[in-house]
């Protein structure tokens, strides 16, 4: 790519935008976590109405409608003027996978945010990242009143590899959210040292 165009404003250093995905079930605290570490920005996108969503979304009176507007949030963390982290909270349901496909290309990695009361909600996300060999970690959002499980119990319940990090977090806390992101980047670094780049498209 002709990246080195010099006649553009501020074109001295490459502006690097890095994507991190945050996936998990509905109401698990994705937006809360993004908001804890970054300024939330709304994004409107479109979703083709699939059979899956037709069953759950009322479309009476709009039978001809094939797409619907979906609101999505993302957060922006400026690490340096030329290095910016973008956090995309991806809706958990499988019918949003068309959005994940775009988001996942070139992403640094992903965080699967899980609620121990509804662990099964995180299955689709875990499946997705495992199949596409996108490095990820699991963060357990410790909701008040939720029973504290040992992370090893969760590992067993989710059938996760022994070396996949599972951490506890409080999605409302900036420090905690930061720890989650740091854990992800550290995991990606370890993974990157272990395996040569394979031909993942």
């Amino acid at each position, binding site marked *: 790519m002709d990246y080195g*165009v010099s006649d553009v404003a501020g074109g001295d250093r490459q*502006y*690097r935008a890095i994507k991190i995905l945050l996936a998990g079930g509905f109401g698990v605290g994705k937006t809360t976590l993004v908001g804890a570490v970054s300024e939330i920005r709304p994004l*409107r*996108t479109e979703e083709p109405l699939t059979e899956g969503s037709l069953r759950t979304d009322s479309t009476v009176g709009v039978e001809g409608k094939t797409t619907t507007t979906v609101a999505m949030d993302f957060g922006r963390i400026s690490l*340096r003027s030329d290095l910016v*982290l973008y956090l995309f909270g991806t809706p958990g349901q499988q019918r949003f996978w068309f959005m994940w496909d775009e988001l996942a290309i*070139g992403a*640094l990695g992903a965080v699967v945010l899980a609620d121990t009361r509804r662990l099964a909600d995180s299955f689709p996300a875990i499946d997705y990242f495992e199949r596409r060999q996108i490095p990820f970690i699991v963060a357990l959002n410790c909701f008040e009143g939720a029973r504290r499980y040992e992370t090893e119990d969760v590992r067993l319940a989710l059938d996760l590899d022994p070396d996949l990090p599972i951490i506890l977090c409080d999605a409302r806390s*900036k420090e905690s959210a930061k720890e989650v992101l740091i854990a992800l980047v550290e995991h990606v670094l370890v993974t990157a040292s272990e395996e040569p780049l394979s031909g993942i498209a």
Partner: protein
Amino acid sequence: MPSNDERWLDAEAGPVVRPYALTQGRTRHTGDSFDLVATVMATRIFGDPSSLAPEHISVLQLARVPTTVADIASDVDLPLGVVRIILADLRELGLVVISTPVVMAERVDKHTLREVLNGLRGL
């Protein structure tokens, strides 16, 4: 390109149709596709803004400093698909350059990972 088997949407189709009026009904952009965090930069000051639609001008103004597709879409508050079409139009006119960040080509390299790690620790 509109084709015969393309379903057309009537007035009941809801809010998704209206934004696409800005794109003359086009739902796909021209040229190479670009990532949500591809960097957009205006190439030069445009001489005759009157020939551009107001939305195109808004997008162009936002791109005076390097910015991403996602940031622009959020700032102009239009659906992503519409913003992509506007950006592709501007690219075709030579008014913006849309660059896929180098790190996007493959997995993020280790050097960048360490930079990200240090940046996060310093937040």
